[in-house]
């Protein structure tokens, strides 16, 4: 465990940390969408400038972002290589059976690499600067309009915040049970595939059982404290839309406009 950096929150006090989580969530999605509009070097340079600007504004150690990319490096390399060897067009440098190495292939590979890095950087920035519960709050607020079409927004957001809250607890529990079973002679991640699958049973069964127990205890505790469903509840954590959020949105919209302009350079 512990090695996963994506999804971890590092408390801090910067412009980005203080932003409304709704703004951060919308901007992250917005950013991922506009990445696909970029189609030349100038536009990628602009997006990189925006990303690095955001990272600097968040005052988060840059090493986090490099570490965020690392676990996905094989997926990225695989996709990039696929692009490089299977795209055709432009000058062909080398050809062997179905593979060919062309000018466009190289360019496309480089673009795909940039997209991956940008998406990972931006989503890492979102999770590093926003506590999980803030994200859940933001999703609840943003989903509110869906209530009109009978989507159970309260229930979904409650489940989401409970799920987020229990991720670290379950990770700890997993580590504990793994240690206990290793002490009883289970070797995780060793031997043939069948042996490895079998080794997971002593981990999964206790984890499920404890999740059931936990769910029951939690439900009882919630009822005992007067929980009767989402309708008519008030909120403890209230987020306000501030000037900083408007400025952030304005910057991103400006980037979109420049991007559209650069597309047709």
């Amino acid at each position, binding site marked *: 465990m512990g090695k996963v950096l994506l999804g971890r929150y590092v408390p801090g006090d910067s412009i980005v940390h203080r932003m409304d989580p709704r703004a951060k969530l919308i901007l992250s999605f917005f950013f991922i969408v506009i990445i696909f509009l970029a189609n030349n070097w100038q536009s990628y340079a602009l997006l990189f400038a925006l990303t690095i600007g955001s990272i600097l504004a968040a005052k988060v150690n840059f*090493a*986090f972002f490099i570490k965020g990319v690392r676990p996905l490096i094989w997926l990225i390399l695989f996709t990039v290589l696929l692009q490089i060897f299977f795209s055709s067009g432009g000058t062909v440098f080398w050809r062997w059976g179905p593979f060919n190495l062309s000018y466009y292939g190289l360019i496309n590979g480089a673009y795909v690499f940039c997209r991956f890095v940008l998406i990972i950087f931006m989503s890492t920035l979102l999770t590093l600067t926003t506590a999980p519960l803030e994200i859940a709050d933001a999703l609840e607020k943003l989903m509110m309009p869906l209530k009109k079409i009978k989507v159970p927004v309260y229930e979904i957001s409650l489940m989401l915040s409970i799920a987020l809250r229990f991720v670290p607890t379950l990770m700890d529990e997993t580590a*504990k049970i793994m240690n*206990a079973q*290793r*002490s*009883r*002679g289970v070797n995780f991640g060793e031997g043939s595939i069948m042996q490895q699958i079998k080794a997971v049973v002593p981990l999964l*069964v206790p984890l499920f059982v*404890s999740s059931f127990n936990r769910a029951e205890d939690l439900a009882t505790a919630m009822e005992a404290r007067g929980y009767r469903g989402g309708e008519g509840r008030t909120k403890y954590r209230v987020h306000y839309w501030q000037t900083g959020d408007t400025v952030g949105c304005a910057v991103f919209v400006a980037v979109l406009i420049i991007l559209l302009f650069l597309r047709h350079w």
Partner: protein
Amino acid sequence: MAIIFKAVNYTYQPNTPFEQQALENISAEIPTGSYTALIGHTGSGKSTFLQHLNGLLRPTSGVIHVGKQIITPETKNKQLGELRKHVGIVFQFPEAQLFEETVIKDIAFAPKNFGKTEEEAETIARRMAQQVGLDDELLSKSPFELSGGQMRRVAIAGILAMEPEILVLDEPTAGLDPQGRLEIMEMFKRLKEEQNLTVVLVTHQMDDVAKYADNVIVLEKGKQIASGTPSEIFAQPNWLVEHHLALPKAGEFALEFEKKTGYKFATLPLTEVSLARQIASLLHGGGVHHG
């Protein structure tokens, strides 16, 4: 099997922003056949210490000897399988590790993993179930049908079934009722005497430390701040308070008794038995001197 720590350091997630040093330059010795209590505040590194005993964690630097086995930062996982056979760890709330369909199968799980045949493992499992006081009719039940206390016993039996030479107990009685507590602690004591086990006990119960242990190691913030016999450790009440520890109840009573009566005990009694004995001899010796 003796356990020797030499200048052991352990750091969680080294070279990351979440780096955290849990053990700092620990040099400790747990002699063969001793009953060693490991005490200290929550977060003092006790659990990290325990996980070094059977190689679940390897030191970031330093050397650990467990019997003939030597654990260094470079030791490979494969070499540690043998060690785990000899060191049985009962983790906190060990009932969380039960998973088999029946109690007997769960107890037999560890011996089977360590190379015993199905029959041998089952024989051992039956014997261990008896040791921990589980009725025969429970053995074919699912472990999840049992009460909390019974599940705890099954889990402990599952560790004892490994027939370890070193038995490590991480708060084995946490959450049990007083009767269950006493029974389980007495059982460990009996097992230790019968099989000459080396026992390492992590606990916050100073009464248990005074009653059972013959060797105490005190950790604070990852450092070893004291070690010795219980009477050495409990000799300075002020030092204990400074380090967020406490005297056993008998000791506290004795101090209070000294304050009220002006009588001085020759040695501070730490268990009910020695307290009772000293007070009895005092009564025989003729009266309390009022001061």
